[in-house]
């Protein structure tokens, strides 16, 4: 019987795992180690600003253990969505950490870096050719969007990763990649049962998230065989059950039975889950249906402006009972002040101000079914302008205006906001938004990705 053994150290590098669990996995002699290094989950700031979500120190700690294990076993180590967003900046950040570890530990290996950042001319050409299609729901996307985007990445499938390993890479640092592709690449190279391989990949890409009671990020191990796979957590105090494994396809996924990948769909409708031991689960019956057209998902971020935030609390019952009208009048008065300040150079369209009322509907906004005001509320005012200087001037002006904004009940100067910080205006930095939810239909699964090899 063919068997591929897979070690998944943790759901995302930098979040940690128990060294003891990981070493137990190493002793089980895996054929490869793979780990996700990114996500869009933290929002557009990481792709837009080219900055990582996790700390250098945490990432280095996790990567060192993986690189030492790779060296010991002489197997491929695959990391994808490097530096959170998987853009060129994130890939360079991860490469630097890897090279630092290699120098410290005296490791020698062949490194492949697979770039997923997209050339704007390429994206424009594919758009013109009608080879870019929106997913549902999608923002408007045209040539201007492409020009405005600070970064656009394509989410690679397993093909560029498999190609790099075929060309001798010991360690693969991939730009943006679907989490599952990191685990599907080696099984695909070995002509494994891909229905099972993809389903397995979907479960282990989150590390030990598939256990009954998740205590901390940790490692899991999987055995992929011809007609089934088995998953077992590497912390002996952790257990997987058929229900916990079946439940994992629910997580962060719109449809648990049909999961879209670049080359097709993972179908888990007929998957069968049974206990292998009291800690491990055997899965069979998953299928992979190839798509009619291979597609690569695009992710892009564009800059919206520069933001300052002011946080204040209100405890005065009289302000609270007229909170909406107080806020409305405050915003109206602020509009007039902006004209005073900028003499019409900054119009209504050049800035935004959003008040969030926590303690009423700060979490759900217009969807809140019970927008009741309690004995106090916290208000977060977000001021976004075209650049830092203007946004700062707007925030300074607004905070003073809001602090003393009157209500009819009180005669004399009031101070209506409890502000916990000095200065009151918090520099939130550049603001980005996701500007794409589209796919490209390439001629070849690898055409959007560029691989660089080096001997470390």
């Amino acid at each position, binding site marked *: 019987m063919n068997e591929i053994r897979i070690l998944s150290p943790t759901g995302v590098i930098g979040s940690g795992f128990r060294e003891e669990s990981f070493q137990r996995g190493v002793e089980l002699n895996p054929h490869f180690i793979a780990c996700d290094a990114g996500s869009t989950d933290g929002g557009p700031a990481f792709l837009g600003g080219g900055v990582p979500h996790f700390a250098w120190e945490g990432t280095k700690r996790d990567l060192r253990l993986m690189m030492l294990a790779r060296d010991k076993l002489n197997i491929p180590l695959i990391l994808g969505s490097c530096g959170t967003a998987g853009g060129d900046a994130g890939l360079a950040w991860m490469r630097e950490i890897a090279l630092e570890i290699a120098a410290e530990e005296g490791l020698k290996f062949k490194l492949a870096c697979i770039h997923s950042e997209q050339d704007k001319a390429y994206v424009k050409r594919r758009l013109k050719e009608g080879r870019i299609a929106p997913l549902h729901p999608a923002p408007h996307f045209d040539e201007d969007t492409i020009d405005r985007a600070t970064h656009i990445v394509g989410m690679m499938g397993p093909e560029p990763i498999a190609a790099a390993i075929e060309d001798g890479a010991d360690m693969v640092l991939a730009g943006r990649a679907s989490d599952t592709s990191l685990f599907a690449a080696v099984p695909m190279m070995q002509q494994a049962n891909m229905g099972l391989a993809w389903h397995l990949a979907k479960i282990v890409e989150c590390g030990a998230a598939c256990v009954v009671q998740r205590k901390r990020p940790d490692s899991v191990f999987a055995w992929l065989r011809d007609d089934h796979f088995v998953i077992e957590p590497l912390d002996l105090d952790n257990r997987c059950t058929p229900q916990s494994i079946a439940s994992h396809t629910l997580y962060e996924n719109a449809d648990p*039975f049909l999961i879209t990948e670049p080359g097709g769909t993972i179908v888990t409708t007929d998957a069968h889950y049974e206990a292998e031991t009291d800690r491990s689960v055997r899965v069979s019956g998953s299928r992979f249906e190839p798509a009619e057209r291979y597609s690569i998902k695009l992710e892009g971020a564009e800059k919206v402006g520069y933001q300052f935030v002011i946080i204040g609390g209100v405890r005065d019952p009289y302000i609270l009972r007229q909170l909406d009208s107080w806020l409305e009048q405050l915003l109206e008065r602020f509009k007039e002040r902006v004209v005073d300040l900028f003499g019409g150079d900054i119009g209504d369209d050049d800035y935004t101000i*959003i008040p969030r009322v926590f303690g009423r509907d700060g*979490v*759900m906004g217009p*969807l809140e079914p019970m927008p009741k005001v309690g004995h106090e509320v916290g208000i977060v005012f977000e001021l976004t302008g075209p650049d830092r200087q203007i946004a700062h001037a707007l925030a300074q002006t607004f905070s003073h205006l809001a602090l003393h904004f009157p209500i009819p009940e009180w005669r004399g100067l009031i101070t209506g906001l409890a502000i916990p910080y000095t200065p009151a205006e918090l520099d939130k930095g550049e603001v980005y938004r996701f500007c794409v939810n589209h796919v490209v239909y390439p001629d070849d699964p690898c055409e959007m990705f560029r691989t660089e090899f080096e001997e470390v």
Partner: protein
Amino acid sequence: MAKLGDLAKLIRSKNAGSFWLTFDIMFDDEETYRRVIDSGAVTPESFAAIYKVSLDDIKFVNHDAARAIKISIPRPIFQGEMADADLYGGQQYGPLVEIEVG
């Protein structure tokens, strides 16, 4: 009558990518899972009413192996847009906890 929050082992919401929001209502045992489904308290219609969303936009699934009800909708505000208050979509399930189950 019982509240859905008392019957479920976990009710959660989360981004499913940047453009979808998904809700999981998970149960420990078959009996409770079936009771909630059979009660008709959690349906596409009841969900649509709470979240002010069109029925056509709702993906509603009963996942027997996981003993879970799963509902997904296009995100009312795309993740990370300035007006978005819940970057991870993690706190949008609150009203589901209070649903009365017969």
